[in-house]
């Protein structure tokens, strides 16, 4: 994800965002082409929300950032007509009825479809006549997701969109997103801590660690580049001697260990273990953990 083209929806070069003296996002460069579903992963405080805010013009960046060909900070209003955004702390106004909110959105967003929103809301447990203040946290999230999904945007930026939703609602939302919203032209950027749930949906991954981009890669490239070897405890020392990115448990018992390598592991090690596909979570841990920590010790 580093080659800009006409199909690039987001283009960041040496992008930094500062809050006072703190660099929340530190010199990151990446591209997001059209038709991609990008997972933005990082620990709490890694800079995910700040990067997303910068992408929709709510945080002032340094460096170069173009979203849909626009400067988000300068052209925020024009950008938000074609890019929709759910912030991580989003709460809908409590004083309004859901149907009034749909009507308000119709007037305030040129690409919002009230019919589509009502259609999506009917699939949820949220009633159109309900006041937001009477809804549970999960229902508010459902309502917000339905409103955002009714926007005919080219780019959807979702910061922890399913926080507070039960597993069925999360599954329903992601199914709707993939089957109905994504059409090969639109792209989605999702930040979430529930990595396992969205791993199968993603086409690309951006990993942030303390503001720095430690990985910007497609899922296909991950399969080609990273290799995990599961092995018995008897060969653990030999695996450790090859300095894998991460050693971790993959199952109970002494034989349930694995070593994760960036690139092909040495040939003699491949004979000692069984090759397996590393999960996104293990890769995330490997690339963003504190060096002094070792998961095998827990």
């Amino acid at each position, binding site marked *: 994800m580093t080659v800009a083209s006409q199909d690039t929806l987001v283009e960041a070069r040496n992008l930094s965002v500062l809050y006072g003296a703190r660099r929340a996002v530190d010199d990151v460069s990446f591209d997001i082409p059209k038709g991609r579903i990008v997972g933005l992963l990082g620990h709490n405080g890694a800079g995910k*929300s700040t990067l997303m805010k910068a992408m929709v013009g709510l945080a002032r960046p340094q460096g170069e950032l173009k979203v849909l060909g626009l400067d988000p900070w300068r052209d925020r*209003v024009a950008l*938000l007509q074609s890019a*929709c955004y*759910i912030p991580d*702390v*989003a709460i809908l*106004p409590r004083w309004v009825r859901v149907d009034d909110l749909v009507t*308000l959105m119709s007037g305030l967003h040129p690409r919002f479809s009230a019919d589509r929103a009502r259609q999506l809301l009917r699939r949820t447990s949220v009633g159109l006549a309900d006041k937001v203040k009477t809804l549970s946290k999960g229902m508010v999230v459902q309502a*917000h997701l339905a409103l955002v999904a009714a926007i005919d945007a080219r780019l959807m930026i979702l910061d922890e969109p399913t926080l507070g939703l039960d597993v069925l609602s999360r599954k329903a939302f992601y199914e709707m997103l993939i089957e109905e919203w994504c059409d090969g032209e639109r792209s989605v950027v999702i930040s979430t801590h529930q990595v396992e749930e969205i791993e199968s949906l993603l086409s690309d991954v951006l990993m942030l660690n303390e503001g720095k981009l430690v990985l910007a890669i497609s899922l296909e490239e991950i399969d080609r580049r990273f290799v995990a070897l599961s092995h018995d405890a008897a060969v653990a020392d030999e695996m450790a001697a090859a300095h894998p990115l991460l050693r971790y448990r993959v199952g109970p018992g002494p034989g349930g260990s694995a070593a994760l390598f960036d690139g092909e592991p040495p040939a003699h090690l491949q004979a000692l273990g069984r090759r397996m596909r590393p999960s996104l979570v293990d890769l995330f841990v490997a690339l963003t953990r504190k060096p002094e920590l070792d998961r095998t010790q827990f």
Partner: protein
Amino acid sequence: MTHFLPLIRREWLQHRFGWSLLALLPLALGLLVAGFGQVEFDGDSPLPVDGALPVMLAFAVVAGATAIVFIVMSLTSLIIVSGLARRDHADRSIEFWLSLPLSHGESLAVPLLVHLVLVPVAALLVGLLGGYAISIVLVARMAGPAAWLELPWGALLPATLAIVARLAAGLPLALLWLSPLIMLTVLSTALFRRWGIVLLAVAIGLGSTVLERLFGQPMLSQLLGRLLRNAGQALASASGTGLTLRSDDDPLVALQGVPGWALADLSAALGALASPLTLGALVVAAACFALLVNWRQRSSKAAD
């Protein structure tokens, strides 16, 4: 400003209950008092319909009801406006509003316009209609049900409408004079939350005291006095002659003089604008608004 009407609708949706309550409650109380209260007048009762009292009473009731609803709603609007910049932060819905394609300027300007101009003007109209309703009850109790229709409406209607028009036309002028204080208040509550008003009051009080006692310069207190005085005169008595209707005046003649008084008074209020203070007030208000826009632009906090 393509989002003008939707943003007005937003204010209506958020405040409709409070607005309706505050506007209709005084009128309902007025109707109750007029309908069931005890009304006593000196002299014989019932009063003759062609006497001065029913006419002047109807005028006073309409003007009074209009003024009361206008004052109640205007004060309420000032309270709402003082916390306007932070209201969406309180329920955290600011993140939702910031995710919509609305400029920061229009997101601040339209609510200000609604609360400072549209609501008071609407209050004038509601107060006027409510005043007519109260006058029906009151005059009917005094002089019979048909008496209200027999009032000299050719003079009464223009007189009451002139009062409403005078207040409506004076409102933007009063707001202009008050705009530095209003915008400073909004800005200070944006920056310092609920302490903003206290800090502003302390700063103004302390500033004027220091200037006056240490440097012998009462300019700040004089400036504030002029702003408040001009704002009051922008709404009424700008010409220095208040509207006075004496009971021994011929009611028709007195009422026929009201539109002329209103026009002269408005002219005097407009004439007061020809002052460097007008420009200064506008500059301070515009600077505060620009700072508010800048504050709103930067108010989205980091939350990774």
